[in-house]
């Protein structure tokens, strides 16, 4: 995925007819690919094969594990932990929607209205990344603590009554509830949404807006018919960059959640580290991967965009 972050070379006018280079030059692309391929081979493919193998093994730590093609592990894992899967999709999906709602206006502002403050605001968006993920999540525990001002204000304004009724909080608290986990996910993955949105908004030619105005489009129509469709690549890659890691995340649920907010990442961690049921942990990882792949495929199909950046 490193291609996503690399600065693309300047846009050259597309040549009408591409002839593949001949002779030694033909091999150059392969040589350039080699480091990337090797990297993927060693750090992606090999662990994948290893985990795939683990998922169909049976045994124990003392007797060792053997490949017995025990595919039932997959079924058992799914039957046992489907609530956590569902919850992961639900939480990650909610966080992604929230990120989009929060991130789009901000990205729009940075791209079109920030002027000379543009770089400053961009740095502010990235600034939280200068501290560790864990520290940032722990900070939320202080912000949302039971006796803290945030929970106090929400209580006074009777917001917690509403959220209690919705079932996303319990009692007079926010921590250790679904709301806290979704908030943590939204906060932690927001920059992954803003940056791609910004890149695709920033690329829109402002003259298109002028042209839309000249054709008597109201600002809202301009946004609906011009800006938003042109920013679709950013929306798609932003939602993917948010949803995929959020659905596998376990830190937020671990620190901000409770027993009834555990996500599939927590289950995998517990099975792998505590219960030492390596096959189940590996099977869960593969089910998660497959589920994400299917959902992402359907999503990209529907969103009807070719470019991811």
């Amino acid at each position, binding site marked *: 995925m490193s291609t996503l972050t690399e600065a693309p070379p300047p*846009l050259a006018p597309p040549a009408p007819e591409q002839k593949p280079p001949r002779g030694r030059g033909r091999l150059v692309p392969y040589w350039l690919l080699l480091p990337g391929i090797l990297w993927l081979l060693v750090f992606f493919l090999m662990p994948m*094969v290893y985990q795939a193998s683990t998922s*169909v093994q049976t045994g*124990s730590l003392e007797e060792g594990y053997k490949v017995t093609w025990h595919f039932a592990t997959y079924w058992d894992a799914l039957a046992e932990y489907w609530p956590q899967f569902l919850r992961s999709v639900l939480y990650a999906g909610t966080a992604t929607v929230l990120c989009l709602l929060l991130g789009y206006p901000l990205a729009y502002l940075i791209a079109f209205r920030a002027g000379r403050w543009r770089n400053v605001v961009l740095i502010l968006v990235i600034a939280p990344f200068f501290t560790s993920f864990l520290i940032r999540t722990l900070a939320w525990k202080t912000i949302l603590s039971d006796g803290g001002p945030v929970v106090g204000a929400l209580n006074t304004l009777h917001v917690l009554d509403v959220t209690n009724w919705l079932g996303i909080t319990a009692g007079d*608290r926010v921590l*250790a509830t679904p709301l806290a986990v979704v908030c943590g996910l939204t906060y932690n993955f927001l920059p992954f949404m803003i940056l791609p949105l910004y890149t695709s908004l920033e690329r829109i030619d402002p003259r298109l807006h002028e042209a839309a105005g000249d054709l008597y489009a109201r600002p809202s129509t301009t946004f609906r018919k011009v800006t938003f469709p042109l920013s679709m690549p950013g929306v798609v890659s932003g939602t993917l960059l948010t949803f995929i890691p959020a659905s596998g995340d376990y830190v937020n649920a671990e620190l901000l959640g409770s027993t009834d907010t555990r996500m599939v990442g927590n289950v995998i961690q517990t099975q792998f580290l505590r219960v030492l049921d390596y096959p189940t942990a590996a099977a869960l990882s593969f089910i998660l991967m497959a589920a994400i792949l299917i959902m992402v495929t359907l999503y990209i199909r529907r969103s009807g965009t070719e470019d991811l950046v």
Partner: protein
Amino acid sequence: MEQNEPERLSPAQLAAMRRSLTSGRAALTRRSLLRASAGGALVAGGLGALTGCGIPAAGKTQGGVSAEDHSAKEKTVNFSNWTEYIDIDDSGKRHPTLEAFTKRTGITVKYTEDINDNNEFFAKIKPQLAAGQDTGRDIIVLTDWLAGRLIRLGWAQKLDPSNLPHAFANLSDQFRSPDWDPGRAYSYPWQGISTVIAYNKKALDGAEVKSVSDMLDNPKLKGRVGFLTEMRDTIGMTLLDMGKDPAKFTDDDYDAAIARLQKAVDSQQIRRFTGNDYTSDLTKGDFAACIAWAGDVVQLKADSPDVDFMIPDSGYLTSSDNMLIPNKARHKTNAERLMDYYYEPGPAAELAAYINYVTPVEATKVRPYLAKIDQSAADNPLIIPDQSMAAKSRAFRSLSQKEETAYEAKFAKLTGA
């Protein structure tokens, strides 16, 4: 920006790459991404490769457990310990007891604080130990159950008693013969740990907590009670509260304890299960009461006066963190000398005065030294247990591998999987 790429470019990566070389922007389109990932899945599906990946049985390590002892030639020892688990001077960089050891013996100690969690550390060293390789560590410090597991798997080296005269003479009776390492053939405690009930006076708001039952049943504490993700601490304290002995309980007792806790989880009495991070919940008052490690509480009390602990009448759980020499360690003799050094009353007292855990050195021997450094520490029953403390202390029995797996699985379900 739509690109109509001819389908003839069959290898997906090549197609994506060529596009990126020729026309910039469209470096990664969805079609190429999908095709590339589908291709990757196919390769991963080369099922033949999978069978080659079995994990060999533990304990059947090739070529014996001990490496050649380089202690005489290499005057060094690699010591892996938990974070903030040793004395440290005001500069925050030097460990006086370790420096004194180096001065006396000429052995340099490479001290690394790389243990944060028993389970994670086990996952980290497992591949090397299973493959019969050196972990690069001469001493590791593990809690009872994990130390027991390493011994059971044959991954720890037998100690040479002739290098450990002080340790043998001064080890406190309480720690002398755990069921997972009778007679301390493989391990010596670094420090003892007491599991107790901690509370935040302000958050309790007048409620009284004198037992685990109070934590589980008092409606005033609903949603403000915490238990530990360490199965033995949580279950052990619950068993004690139910009048069972964690040193000899049955499967039924275990299930009863789980059921008791499950009820409190369902009624949302228990807020959550935590690891080390319970300390922040407790000091902020999000936990009114929780199961805690006494050494932590002694330190927390210094910063937050509202925090305190109590020992239930039904008793409390004692365990220890133990020094072991993993297989193939290069400096076994040096490691044993360092272990023995911490059983001399002087260094033991210095360490105990600093870290506030239970010292494993016999009370009568270490107390005079500790009193010289810090009289209040010498009188603190959490550091040197007195008669009544010792009488209430219980250990969690060691589990067979089968029990361990079954119990951890049940416990995982309790904590939300």
